[in-house]
């Protein structure tokens, strides 16, 4: 007998679960809709009363303010939209630098808590406790104060080799992009290709003969040799733009403002404490039996870490690590308190000048929300890929 489809149940009685669910949702949506309408109509009224315009058209108008530092040139005649763009690049600049530095520092400290040396362990624990229990805003303010008060004036700037350190920030020799540097880049690319080729060949040789060839040092040497060769081919130029102490400021060279430095230092040291905890708990999550089994099979410590401990620990470390990266990016919004022109500062200035609070805050929130969603999405994809397969 052919199977029949189940009879359609539809009842309008209050006792039906589906009906009740429907009613609850309708009521909830109606309440939310009502609240939203209430807020919306108030907003419109208030804006009319106060004479506030609305709309995103202000974005094309000239900004009327200049920005302290930016990756690309900006003057006060450019549009608000471009100003927001500068803010975004400033945010990303400090976020990316902070993420890299905090990861390195945090990983070292996290691993240091397993050191055989009791002193190293104690110092790492002290670092983590200290920096995690003080608000990040306070840390930023202290760094900013130190960089602007304790550092000498530009006239008396500290000189370390070609570097200048003063209240005006850090000045460093910057590379000058010329044809020589292009050769350098080409050499680097060639070195990278050779290194990749070596690793590929080494892996195949290992499978075929069982002899392990160097997978790190030789490719690194190839990479550096390629870069060096390219540099030689480009004329071995050692031209750098050196900073020179002028009358009121240090000229030439590259510069990092004290605001950027304070923000970078504060965010790095704070987030490194959290990353250290994440790394520590990831390493500790691998059961001791895994190391024992590896020892029993004759694997030495290096192989044990590389093949057994690290893959398992990384699976536990990566999700909370991405969370910390997001936190660092969100914490960079505190730049508004020390005058670094990130996107929140720019939005604040724009809000004050145009009165368009709703639009500016909406732009702000969308930017951060996009960054967050992209990162969570990427992380979910990674998680699904490396999940340890169970029943």
């Amino acid at each position, binding site marked *: 007998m052919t199977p029949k489809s189940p009879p359609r149940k539809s009842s309008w009685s209050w006792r039906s679960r589906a009906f009740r669910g429907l009613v609850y949702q309708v009521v909830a949506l109606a309440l939310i809709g009502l609240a939203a309408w209430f807020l919306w109509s108030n907003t419109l009224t208030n804006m009319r009363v106060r004479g506030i315009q609305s709309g995103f058209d202000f974005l094309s108008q000239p900004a009327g303010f200049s920005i302290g530092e930016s990756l690309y040139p900006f003057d006060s005649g450019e549009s608000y939209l471009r100003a927001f763009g500068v803010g975004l690049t400033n945010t990303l600049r400090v976020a990316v630098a902070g993420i890299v530095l905090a990861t390195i520092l945090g990983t070292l400290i996290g691993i240091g808590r397993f050191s055989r040396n009791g002193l190293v362990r104690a110092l790492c624990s002290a670092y983590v406790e200290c920096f995690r229990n003080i608000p990040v805003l306070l840390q930023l303010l202290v760094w900013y104060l130190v960089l602007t008060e304790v550092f000498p004036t530009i006239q008396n700037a500290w000189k370390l080799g070609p570097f200048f350190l003063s209240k005006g920030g850090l000045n460093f020799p910057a590379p000058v992009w010329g044809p020589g540097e292009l050769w350098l880049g080409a050499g680097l690319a060639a070195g990278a290709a050779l290194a990749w080729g070596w690793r590929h060949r080494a892996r195949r040789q*290992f499978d*075929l*003969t*069982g002899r392990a060839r160097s997978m790190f040092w030789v490719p690194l040497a190839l990479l550096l040799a390629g870069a060096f060769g390219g540099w030689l081919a480009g004329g071995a130029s050692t031209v750098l733009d050196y900073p020179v102490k002028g009358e009121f400021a240090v000229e030439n060279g590259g510069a990092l403002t004290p605001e950027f430095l304070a923000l970078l230092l504060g965010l790095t040291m704070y987030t490194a404490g959290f990353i250290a905890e994440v790394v520590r708990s990831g390493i500790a999550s691998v059961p001791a039996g895994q190391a024992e*089994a590896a020892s*029993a*099979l004759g694997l030495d410590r290096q*192989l044990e870490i590389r093949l*057994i401990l690290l*893959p398992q620990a990384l699976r536990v470390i990566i999700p909370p690590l991405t969370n910390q990266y997001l936190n660092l990016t969100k914490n960079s919004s505190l730049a508004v308190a020390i005058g670094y022109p990130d996107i929140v500062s720019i939005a604040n200035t724009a809000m004050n000048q145009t009165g368009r609070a709703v639009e500016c805050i909406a732009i702000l929130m969308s930017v951060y929300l996009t960054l967050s969603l992209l990162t969570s999405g990427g992380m979910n994809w990674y998680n699904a890929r490396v999940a340890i397969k169970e029943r």
Partner: protein
Amino acid sequence: MTEPIIRFDKVNKWYGNSFHVLRDIDLAVGRGEKIVICGPSGSGKSTLIRCINRLEEHQEGRLVVDGVELTDDVKAVDEVRKKVGMVFQQFNLFPHLTVLDNLTLSPMWVGNLPRKEAVDKAMQQLERVRIADQANKFPLQLSGGQQQRVAIARALCLTPKIMLFDEPTSALDPEMIKEVLDVMIELASQGITMLCVTHEMGFAKAVADRVIFMDEGQIVESNEPHEFFNNPRSERSRDFLSKILGH
């Protein structure tokens, strides 16, 4: 008489300053001998066999495995570990690698075998424990009994002379104990030296050349299974047997 493959000579071990976990252990294991070690918990049985592949270090006495004395010398320890295979109570399979990768790991990275040979060897061992069809699954996709059989196959891939079993069936559900014990019995019939810490007395009766009873860090009794189970000579052995054979 031929030289014993394992010799404990007045071996003593402490945990910390005062817990004397192995006391004056004197033991000689002959080649191809099957020994079952039993005793109450805390008696030092696991510690004893873990000393053999230096997962635990002894503080006093001499321990010689297949002609190599176990000391702080790292090379000696590595040499010994290539000849000794171990099966753990918690299986300790590597969850992020497939069953096949679990088995080929040591032969490729420590034994320097080419991949093809390592895979052949691994498949051979998997056939031996009758689980070859699961070669490409991940450990957590298998049942407990299957995982333990994979663990036995993994230890066998080193072609060890000695196999150590640390309560291999204690973490298994009852219906899976038999499949693991069957594999161990088959292994025993193939001439390998085995030391097994277990409570499975049926296994001891079927396979063991000797049963060793330990209590409070000492070897109290060491006898043939038949003698041990029917004529336990010391008070403590009698007590222990009545507890575990009574139900």
